């Protein structure tokens, strides 16, 4: 799938990467060239430079060789402090009210719940272009890592815990998202479709999902939880209240519960 779409987070992460890379090249390229030059110039067979076998210290050189890396790292450190806070995945993006989406990693597929729209999907997530997205992420199985590479950043999905990721798409298009953390035989194919669309198209998409007749409930979730590779896209027209929070909470119960058995008494 073409990853032509981009978003403010991906753009900022990329920009930071090239910025830091260029700064380091200023030192790294001369070091490599100097190494090769010195090795050639001072070669035993036919080299030209002076030979001073006992020369082993120089205050100026010592200060320089400690100084250059310290200055470099000093500059980078300020960038790290500033950018890490600016690009904190938990930080809500500015602009319109974000669309809330909850993602649950299963073996080996992704379940997406739209709590405000009361719908859920499997292996496909759609959202309006240029609207901030606020993901809450967890796992029912082993640790996963949620990522839509075109939009930037990733975050772990862990059972019994919730992590957050804020993203946004700047253009309309189709992207591939996936699990980045190895989690078993279906890992390679554990991808999902991420669609950024116009507001009108998004509303049509929501209506399409709603028009289906399957509901996300104990039985359908138990069925969905069975390990499967390359699971097809599926839609659920209704979702129980607080479904996501209950899935996170059920791991914290002392009883050894299996997915789909009982969610009672969690709250």
């Amino acid at each position, binding site marked *: 799938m073409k990853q032509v779409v981009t978003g403010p987070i991906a753009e900022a992460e990329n920009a930071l990467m090239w910025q830091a890379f260029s700064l*380091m090249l200023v030192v790294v390229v001369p070091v490599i060239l100097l190494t090769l030059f010195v*090795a050639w110039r001072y070669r035993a067979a036919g080299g030209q430079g002076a030979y001073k076998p006992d020369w082993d210290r120089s205050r100026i050189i010592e200060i320089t*060789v400690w100084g*250059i890396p310290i200055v470099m790292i000093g500059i980078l450190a300020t*960038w*790290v402090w500033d*950018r890490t806070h600016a690009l904190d995945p938990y930080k809500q993006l500015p602009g319109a009210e974000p669309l809330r989406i909850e993602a649950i990693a299963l073996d080996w597929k992704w379940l997406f719940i739209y709590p405000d729209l009361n719908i859920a999907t499997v292996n496909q997530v759609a959202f309006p272009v240029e609207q901030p997205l606020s993901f809450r992420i967890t796992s029912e199985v082993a640790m996963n890592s949620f990522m839509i590479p075109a939009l930037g*950043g990733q975050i*772990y999905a862990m059972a019994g815990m919730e992590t957050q990721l804020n993203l946004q798409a700047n253009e309309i298009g189709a992207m591939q998202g996936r699990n980045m953390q190895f989690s*078993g035989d279906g890992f390679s194919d554990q991808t999902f479709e991420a669609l950024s669309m116009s507001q009108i198209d998004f509303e049509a998409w929501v209506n399409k999902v709603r028009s289906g007749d399957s509901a996300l409930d104990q039985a359908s979730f138990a069925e969905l939880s069975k390990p499967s590779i390359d699971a097809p896209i599926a839609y659920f027209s209704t979702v129980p209240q607080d479904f996501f929070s209950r899935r996170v909470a059920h791991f914290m119960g002392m009883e050894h519960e299996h997915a789909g058995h009982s969610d009672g008494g969690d709250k």
Partner: protein
Amino acid sequence: MTENVSLLFGRLGPDALPFYSWVAFSGALVTLAGGLGFLILVTWLGQWRALWTGWLTSVDHKRIGIMYIVLALIMLVRGFVDAIMMRLQQAMALNSDGYLPPEHFEQIFSSHGTIMIFFMAMPFMTGLLNYIIPLQIGSRDVAFPVLNAISFWLTAAGAGLMLISLVIGRFSTAGWTGYPPYSGVEFTPGVGVDYWIWSILISGVGTTMTGINFIVTILRKRAPGMLLMRMPMFTWTGLCSSVLIIFAFPALTVSTVMLALDRTLGMHFFTNDSGGNMMNYMNLFWIWGHPEVYILVLPAFGIFSEVVATFSSKRLFGYPSLVYATTVIAILSFTVWLHHFFTMGAGANVNAIFGIATMVIAVPTGVKVFDWLFTMFRGRIRFEPPMKFTIGFMCLFVIGGMSGVLLAIPPINYSTHNTTFLVAHFHNMIIPGVLFGYLAGYMYWFPKAFGFQLDRKWGSRSFWFWLVGFLLAFMPLYALGLMGMPRRMETYGNPEWQPLLIVAFIGACLILLGIVSLVMQLWVSIKQRDALKDTTGDPWDGRTLEWSIPSPPPVWNFDSVPVVTARDAFHESKITGVVLSVAPEEEPLLIPRNSTVGPIIGAAGFCVGFGAVWFIWWLMFAGLALAIAAIIGRSFFDDTEVEVFPGEGAESI
């Protein structure tokens, strides 16, 4: 668990044999053939007694060092076979399953990492430490020779478990880091993860004892006048590495024991439910895992320091800077573990602080590169193979350092973590940084150990194959990572990735030629050992004490203990003409007698591990009892030393 566990055989049954895939079956056959071939060869040559008394029961640090390196080279080949199989799979697997089923591919990437870190790099490093450090500090042996043998045999036991997993049962599919909850019984039942746990647990005990042994050796067994600030750089790095070992390895032991308790006794340290929390595992694992990188790379830095000074025929530039840089790296290495999981959802303050701490390590590391550069400056550089590896390292390592700094910046890490960019980065540190260093050390000190030099031509060929092979194998992975390719992909659907993966496979083939060149180098050199003979004990115009004694050194190393008055003590004595040591001592020397305790405890460790993996509890407890009995038995053994008279010029063995 629903498995049948019998009293006699545990859960071991006929289905443990590798008939599930022809690739696994051939691997098992090759392993068996290698083992049997060795046994037949030794029998045919009638060398069992020589092997047993000369090597297996030896407590001589030089013999143990060589055995460690032999183990490392064997495991290098095994780990490399895994690597080239993965490269072939990924070069083929565009929209297809390639030639490996997912489960087998997962075993291969798990065993590749485990072998290369624990059973290639660690034994290689320990072997070099063993052989060289007592010679560099003017000592007759390590502080605890029998403990040293036990360390080796426990490492060998771990490696044995690792190898046998190819024949009996399967290896882990959970990667070399064994992250729970995936590595728990819920997701990966069976023996694979248990093999992983017990092989690194048992070898880890050996490594911890090595750390203790070398700290005491370096602090207590130095020749008179060998002040700390006169120690060769390799000894300094060995000291820092040993300190890191004893602080870091307990964390690995604890995290793997807890994982074993979860798996075997149904506990809940790292499970999803019942109050377990896998985040604790990741913290514990990387509190070991990050210092481990420096445990491996510091001695390699030491080797580069020795090599660059010797082959530039010049004093090491900025020795105090290098010492301080080494110790600073050692301390900082314990402050950065969280950078292995920036994507776990910690707050911006935590991520930023660990990111900055990580980048701070680049300062002393950068200083080292400059110091080596200025050692070459105004020198007279001889391009022997060890020096080629060193120059290659300097050029490639700064690239890896640069990608490391990028990964240390949390927002960049969010988009590159778990991709092949990360894989390219750590191979860029470990191949040029660690392995080039060890190979340089191997070629540099080989004449000391065996009395003849290694062939230059094949050494150079090996270097060039490794260098170009490395570039072709890993530069594409940087690009693929930026294109979003995750690590550990058995199959993929993006056609843009395939050309780069094919280039990476070609790189792996060149590295294969690099390994073949190493074998050829050894073969050719053994055949021409008379022409390559080192008669002086100082083939490279060396600077440190190990070059002041014959090659190979006598069992007792030094006829009389040298008196050190300067850094580069041997070089100074060559310039000033002042002899390092007086005439051979008249008194007899006491050297430690051979001991069977090492091999017995190694065998016991293997039984403990094998029993624990297969739930053969009697075997596990028999192994434990045997180890305890061997130690108690040894304590009744008073006649542990033998007299030798160096003055008689006894034959060196």
